[in-house]
């Protein structure tokens, strides 16, 4: 990834705070986070369980809104949006990749990939073609008609990546993408992510594994809702 093309800020968090009320007590899941992610970057957000990384992912994915502060993605303030606008925003801007793949078991790989296009407005005319292209991009063009149960774990995660790509989002948001995979398959998936990043796609990976974070260009570490380190990855894994 060249430095020149990643100068525009895609995501910016300012004084981001998220407070959950648990009965009488308050839990500060995010505590004054400031963060910028450039277009075309491959960023890993790392931290142990309860560090606030999942909460951050929900914000970055427009699934949740901050208690105070601002999250701006692609120039739009997430905190100011209504539920309807958030849904449309997720559809066009975010591509989700989940730990458990979250594929619909009764639908073919192609239909799973086309799922986000169902909710796109205006209606996508060549949704099937677009989904097929996305499947080809992850190397599964020949598995379009297979159901998830007929695919290996690695293949299922590739289908999920294709689904995230199908709607041409601004950013791929991967939550523990290798959490359910063996180490060999994990390596393949992370290599695929690197390939996609090389094609100009912004990727954010949330993980608790340093091996996974090693594939990113930048690693941001969280603890107790705060960033404790934010540094470029000198020896990017390959």
């Amino acid at each position, binding site marked *: 990834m060249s430095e020149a093309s990643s100068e525009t800020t895609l995501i910016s968090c300012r004084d981001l705070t998220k407070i959950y009320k648990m009965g009488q007590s308050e839990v500060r899941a995010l505590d004054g986070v400031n963060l910028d992610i450039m277009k075309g970057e491959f960023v890993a957000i790392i931290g142990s369980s309860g560090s606030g990384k999942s909460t951050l992912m*929900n914000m970055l*994915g427009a*699934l*949740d809104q901050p208690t105070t502060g601002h999250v701006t993605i692609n120039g739009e303030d997430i905190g100011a949006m209504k*539920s*309807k606008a958030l*849904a*449309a925003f*997720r*559809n*066009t801007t975010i591509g*989700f990749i*989940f730990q458990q793949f*979250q594929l*619909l078991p*009764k*639908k073919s790989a192609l239909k799973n990939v086309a*799922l*986000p296009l*169902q*909710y*796109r407005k205006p*209606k996508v005319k060549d949704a099937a073609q677009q989904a097929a292209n996305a499947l080809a991009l992850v190397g599964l063009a020949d598995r379009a008609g297979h159901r998830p149960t007929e695919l290996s774990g690695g293949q299922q995660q590739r289908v999920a990546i294709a*689904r995230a790509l199908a*709607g041409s989002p601004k950013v791929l948001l991967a939550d523990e993408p290798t959490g359910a995979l063996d180490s060999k398959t994990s390596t393949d998936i992370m290599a695929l992510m690197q390939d996609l990043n090389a094609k100009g796609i912004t990727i954010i990976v949330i993980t608790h594994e340093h091996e996974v974070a090693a594939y990113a260009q930048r690693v941001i570490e969280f603890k107790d809702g705060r960033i404790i380190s934010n540094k470029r990855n000198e020896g990017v894994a390959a």
Partner: protein
Amino acid sequence: MNVLSTLGLAASSLIERPLRSILTSLGIIIGVASVYAMMSLGEVAKRQIEESLNSISTRTMQVWPDRNRGRSSQTRPTMPFTESDIIEMRAINGVYAATGTLTGRSYTIATDLSDLTGNFLGVDPDQLKASGNEVKLGENISYADVETRRPVVVVSEGIQQRLFDGQNPLGQIIKVNNVTFTIKGVVTKAESNISFGNDDLFVWAPITVARERVIGGNRFIQNHVSNIRVVGGLGQNLDSIEKEIDILLRRSRDLKVGAPPDYRIFSSRGWQEQAASTTKSLSFLLAAMGSISLLVGGVGVMNIMLVSVTERTREIGLRMALGAKKSNIMIQFLTEALLLCILSGFIGIAIGYFASTLAMKAIKIEPFFSPYVAFVSFGSAWIIGVVFGFLPARRAASLNPIEALRHE
């Protein structure tokens, strides 16, 4: 998402869980089928009652003199009605026919070859109209026959069968109490549920001839008739006609105000109307029974849809994460419930039609398809779908996508 893709999505959800869909729809199918069957049976009963309420016999009032009412307890001869009474009754608004009859006892009716005992009546031409009978052969008694006292008769089909072996009797001679008449017509008796004297051996003669030559004697003089039959027009208010008859008779018979009438007006209307209202409540009861089974089916739909929402929580979370709005999710689940109910509605109507046809055949009624009943039962399937699909759909739409995605 447009209508077609929403429908497609709902259809594929139902197809993906075939056993569950079939079992759920079973409740609605049985419900709609019973609503249809019960309602169409109710409709049959209603139609039959309406038919009989509109029949001539139900619209007929018979007016008879009453022997012992009036001035004293001692028996006095009944006071007959007159032809002018009939003319006045015919003029009452809403009256379809009014006719006077001179009723004789049983008479010997004979040809040269055989004889039998039958009813002999003196009538005017309106008799045919008032009885709902039809001329099968020849013609009816005319006013000219009455005026000129022509010795002609119209006989019933029963007479034709018994005295003439079913052969054409027109122009033949018969004797009633040794008075000779020429047959000028044969009438078919109208089908009726209620008849005043259902014997089919009748001979009708012009009232003048009957009075002067056969029945008359000392009892009837000049223009007297023994009873009057008044038929109301279709849809006319029979009660008000009856009231006018009452007023008219009190005047012509010179009754004082408050004096009890020396005549009686009979009609079968009262119990017919009673039957109609009983039928109405019966149909209502039948429809209510059908509705209860439909309601139970609806609760089944809601139950299964709620289970389905719980089972598919992660799918809902995923769809929301991928850009589905709350309304998309709501519509998706509502469409599933509705589609299930509509398809079940079609099948239910088919089964209900089949069942009610069998039932109608069993009670020997011409089976029919009632679009109204089909519409109501189909409409109720829609309503069940919307009403019982709403709660599960709302629950699905109100899920939090973050929690839904984590659902185990």
